């Protein structure tokens, strides 16, 4: 009877079975990618960053805790911060097991695997420290960040390290991963240039502009990537990443298969609805639209789709002046955001792009602007603008500043235009010590008020450490109220 009681599951392997073979470690690494694909991570990463920006406007209230990221009324027990903290550290554990068990050496497959795990560990630490620790540029990383976890010891009860110490780990992991990885894996996995691109962003956020430039430049010059053509820009986000094709713009995206379609719970669901599927409650803000509308030819209008009222036959209704009548939700005009819908024709399916080549140009431009290299900065900005279908006088030059007095403002506005809705704006504003100005309609405004301004010094620039984590680990310290 003894053996009778020794039953093994049908859908799981023991740790021993996993960690002792390349196949097992590969499966575990796939498991970590799955963690960051998990809505707990990807969806909340998006909402905690983008919804706190001035690109978006919410047309009503919601029971989803995304509301408190959007209106800055953070809660100490806020579901989305709990989820991303939880899923982030689970993924980090996954990487630590592989890093501890894999042996580096001559085996290229094993080295790549190891490199991917270093990359993922760095990326997740970096993501979390930006939500829960103050911007590095505030105080050179002297304030409290997150717990650094670089081992698989489950008994350890860490405490929050300084932001700068977290960045140090992120950088050392990324440098390690660059050494270990090759350049052959498709853009849904980490590879050498993916790590370099992320490293460039890390340096940019910490204000190490030389290194930010260096790595952005290396990625651009690696010739692995190319900007998608103007003609294909509008459909860029509907094409699934991955595959063997060379010279894609996407450096790294989190691939979602049809099986991963989250329907109403997808990122795209909040931005767009054809009517039945999805919510379509979060729109491009008036402030973003004003910036975009400065240049009517800008192809990036493709990502902001006004929704018009239609009659029974499906024709757009026109007002007395023959202009189409904008549809409204709760009095707010509907401008759908089209970066997370219709991958492979499926309405709520998308593979969020984490890193793409355009950002590298804009990072280079930002550093150039900060160094005072106006021409270099504008030339990189113009690469992005030309791709957006702008030409001639629509392009910047030292003599054609189009009302701007400051090159950095040109770069940051271009960055906002290009990378809007890609979870970057909030960090771009606060790391540059600017105020988030949200003087446009939306339910972020308290009743009776017309603007909301969050200075970069506000304690609400970052989120509370999830209450449940403070209970589980008394070494953690809460962020200021």
């Amino acid at each position, binding site marked *: 009877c003894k053996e009778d009681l020794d039953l093994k599951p049908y859908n799981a392997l023991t740790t021993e079975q*996993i960690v002792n073979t390349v196949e097992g470690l590969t499966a575990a690494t796939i498991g970590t990618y799955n963690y960051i694909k998990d809505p707990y991570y990807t969806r909340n990463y998006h909402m905690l960053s983008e919804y706190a920006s001035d690109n978006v406007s919410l047309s009503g209230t919601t029971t989803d805790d995304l509301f408190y990221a959007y209106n800055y009324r953070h809660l100490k027990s806020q579901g989305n911060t709990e989820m991303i903290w939880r899923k982030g550290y*689970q993924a980090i554990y996954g990487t630590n097991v592989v890093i501890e068990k894999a042996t580096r050496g001559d085996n290229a497959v094993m080295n790549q695997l190891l490199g991917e795990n270093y990359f993922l560990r760095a990326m997740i630490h970096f993501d979390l420290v930006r939500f829960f620790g103050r911007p590095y540029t505030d105080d050179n990383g002297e304030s409290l960040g997150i717990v650094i976890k670089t081992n698989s010891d489950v008994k350890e009860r860490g405490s929050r390290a300084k932001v700068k110490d977290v960045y140090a780990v992120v950088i050392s992991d990324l440098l390690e991963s660059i050494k270990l990885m090759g350049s052959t894996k498709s853009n849904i996995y980490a590879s050498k240039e993916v790590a370099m691109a992320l490293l460039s962003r890390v340096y940019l956020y910490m204000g190490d502009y030389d290194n930010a430039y260096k790595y952005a430049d290396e990625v651009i010059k690696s010739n692995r990537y190319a900007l998608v053509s103007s003609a294909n820009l509008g459909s860029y986000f509907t094409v699934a990443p991955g595959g063997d094709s060379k010279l894609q713009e996407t450096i790294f995206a989190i691939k979602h298969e049809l099986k991963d379609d989250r329907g109403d719970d997808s990122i795209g669901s909040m931005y767009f609805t054809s009517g*039945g*599927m999805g919510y379509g409650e979060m729109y491009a803000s008036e402030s973003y639209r004003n910036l975009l509308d400065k240049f009517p030819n800008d192809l990036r209008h493709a990502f902001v789709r006004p929704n018009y009222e239609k009659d029974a036959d499906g024709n757009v209704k026109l007002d007395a002046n023959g202009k189409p009548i904008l549809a409204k939700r709760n009095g707010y005009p509907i401008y759908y955001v089209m970066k997370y819908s219709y991958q492979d024709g499926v309405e709520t399916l998308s593979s969020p792009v984490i890193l793409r080549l355009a950002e590298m140009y804009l990072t280079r431009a930002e550093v150039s602007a900060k160094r005072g290299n106006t021409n270099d900065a504008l030339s990189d900005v113009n690469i992005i603008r030309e791709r957006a279908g702008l030409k001639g006088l629509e392009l910047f030059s030292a003599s054609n500043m189009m009302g701007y007095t400051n090159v950095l403002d040109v770069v940051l506005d271009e960055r906002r235009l290009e990378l809007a809705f890609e979870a970057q704006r909030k960090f771009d504003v606060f790391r540059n010590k600017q105020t988030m100005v949200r003087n446009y309609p939306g339910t972020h405004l308290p009743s*009776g008020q017309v603007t909301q301004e969050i200075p970069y010094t506000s304690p609400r620039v970052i989120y509370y450490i999830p209450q449940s984590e403070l209970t589980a680990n008394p070494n953690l310290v809460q962020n200021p109220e």
Partner: protein
Amino acid sequence: QTTGVKTGTVVDETGLPLPGVSVKIKNAAGGTMTDNDGKFSIKTDDKSALLFSYMGYDTQEIGAGAKNPIKVSLKPTDNLMNEVVVVGYVTKNKSQLVSSVSTVSAKKLLDVTSNSTSAMLQGKASGVNVSVPSGQPGASTSIRIRGTGTLSSGSEPLMVVDGVIGGTANPRDIESISILKDAAATGLYGSRAANGVIVITTKQGKAGKTKIDYSGAFGLNTASEGNFKVMNGQQLRDYSAYMYTNDYTGKRAAFIKELQKTIPNPTQQQIDDFLASKDLALTLPGYLAGFMPVEPGNTDWRDLAFRQGITNNQALSISGGDEKTKFYVGANYYDEQGTLVNTDYKSFNFRTNLEHKINDRFKVTARLNAGFTKTNNDPSGALDQSYTNMPWDNPYNADGSPKYVDANSQWYGRDKSNFLYVSQYNRDNSRGQNLSADVKLEYKVTDWLNFATSNRYTVTNSRAERLIDPRTPAGKANRGELYNGYGYTNSFITSNLFNAAHSFGKHNLSGIAGFEYQQNYVDGLNGTGTGILPDLSSMDATAIAKGLSGNRSMSRFVSELFMGDYNYDNRYFATVSMRNDGSSKFGANSRYGLFYSFGAGWNIANEKFFESKVINTLKLRGSYGVTGNTPGGDYAHLDLYLANVQYGGIPGAFPRSLPNPNLTWETPTTINAGLDISFFNRIDLSIDAYQRTNKDLILDVPLPSETGFYFSTENIGSVRNKGIDIELNTKNLTGEFKWNTSFNIGINKNKVLGLYRGQAIERGYQRVAVGRDLNSWYMEEWAGVDPKNGDPLWYMTKTDANGVASRVTTNNLDNADRQFVGTSTPDFIGGIGNEFSYKNFSLNAFFNFVSGGTVYNSARELFDADGAYPQYNSMILKSGWSRWENPGDIATHPKAVANGNRNSNKRSSRYLEDGSYIRLRNITLGYTLSDKVTEKLKLSNVRFFVSGDNLITLTKFSGMDPEVSLVSEGNNAVGVSGTKYPISKKVLFGVNVSF
């Protein structure tokens, strides 16, 4: 005086011979017993009197001078102490019990019309808390016996049907239910007995005339609304206009102030131009038009979502047999149309119980139960929408057809849905089948030793279907979607027991020893396809395979068990039991566990020194024992990478659990002391005091996320339940007008004694902490409304410069600290039933009650939200509540503010309410035809009745219903009341006929 041999026969109430009846001569020594044919012969004189006594029957006295041969017919006794109780593996006379057992007879069970045995148990036994948290036909229930003693493991009692672990029985096939509460009774179930055991015995045929019983009931169901009501069109418009007027006034003033920075004295035109540039309406009516109609519509969505349902229950049973073979065949049809649109539940159940004596030594019993259910769920979201949808929206087109509504429609309600339209096309249904077959073979080895092998194989199958039709809004996006889920389980159990009984003078010994083996298996497959033509619902008609998932799992148990019973002269009783359980669910290092119990009883009333005319029964009982609780998951002890994930289409695995080779059962230790007493043959009282301490809890110890795991499963921590169960049955009037009362109450106190490193565990609105009740609310403490400005207030702890802490109020929820604010555990629960009968009429009324304990009314986060969800309907304030409007108002509710007032609707003690209630679960008026009429009709019994379920509920609770789930699911604590499917009030007419 004639002395001679008197002979005769003793039969039971049905005319069957009764063997073993004691026949004694009154006031004289000597006596005899009836033989297998009920016959006796005794030597006496005509003047003496003969006493015939038999367990469970009234003793009868007959003059020996009666006509020879004497025919005696014994009547079953009404005295509860002589009731025969099935205690799992053995059957005992209640007077011999040393353990705490509640019994519910078929008659008591079958008052409420339901197809759920556990729902029907509600309130009927002390210390047994049954909750029926949803009124949906076929909805599941939860049962807690004497409180909850565990955190991460199962808390439901073990079900035992016809002596074998597991199984199901239709309520109408049930003969009796015994609820085993203390260790002396449950000890034999070892590692599965932690939460008590419910023993169900199904009906068996009796030798003699074949009996046919028909019972039918038919009636109407209506949804109970409780105290919860949402606003009508005008009320909602007034409420909304107040909020949006304040919003507009403030915005307009702010813009004008901004304008005045450049133009100190703007003209009306300049103001209008500026407001237009800011996209703000120029006038208040223009602004309000964006949010509400001028003339509010008044759709009653609740009325559209609910209807009068129908309940139809038809049952037929045929039973009978002869001395060798007995049979029972039962068929039951139950059909309940839910009060919510689209919902209904149908079930068929068939049972056959056969018993055959092959010869004097061999007996074979076979039982077959087959059940088929079909459930329709609402696929349209009608329940939620009946509360959230706005009365201003009209669900119908001009031609009366339901309006198609999607996100792009002109519609005030937040979710832009019209369930009436979706109802026409979507489906959500499931079916289930269960089949269980028992074969039991008994062999009489000697007069005192018996061997029985009981074997049961059970199979269940289920299928769930959800169709999103391509014509519906959601279906349009992907051309429709079809989901199918198939599930299968099987279970095999064999139980092999030696049963011995022997008497030496006044010493009676009995015992069992045996071996059990059980295997449980489950698998399932779920698939989703998209792209399906209208009206179709077969998987092969879908265009794209979207998702596939499944499950598969197995567990085993092996057990050896032993029990010994000793009884001296029906005065002193002792019992001891032991069970050695092994389970695949335990870690490799601790796979086997030994469980044991002792019990003793003293029947004082049987002592010679005890002579009382008042007290008929007086018995003391005591027991002590250790049982167990197994982990919920099948593989919780293994360190596993779960491989149910993929990335980019490549299979992967993630670390799911930490290893724990020492994981084992948790050990509840129960001490029970009981007293049974009866007075005047009219009052029966049982009192039990108990303490159950669960040690080595199977605890999912929450880990900080940095470890990579949510929890590790450990045997650590302790929870104690102690309390008193009281059952009182009285015969208040026994004449022509009869009145009986049964009353029970259970008082239970719960306390967490230990946790991993004393570390508290967060469970949503509750926190599990050492020294407190398991279900303690832990949240921000509400401090009311600021009379100055209508702000919500909470309490916070402020520490001054000297380090002295004090409680002050704050209007910032983030500053508020969390506190323990009561528990959801009731102070006591119970039931009271009254039976009246007069001539052919009978009237039964049964109430159940729950007192103390608070319920978190989470529906109020949505509907009593001070404007946080202005595109949902809102609840009408309960009487006694008030809304702040002007400075100085002392109000219970903060100022209503469009889009919310400072997170006033988030978790706080504001929404905790008294959860006490008393409910008239059932009232039945019956009329039985007189024997004369019945005889003329050639029937043996005809009864008509009208029955009402849940007609009255008395409670202060402001929500739909204070009855809440006892089950904590995921992060949700018990005691939370959200938007629920309301329970039904039913009125049924029925008839029982026996042939």
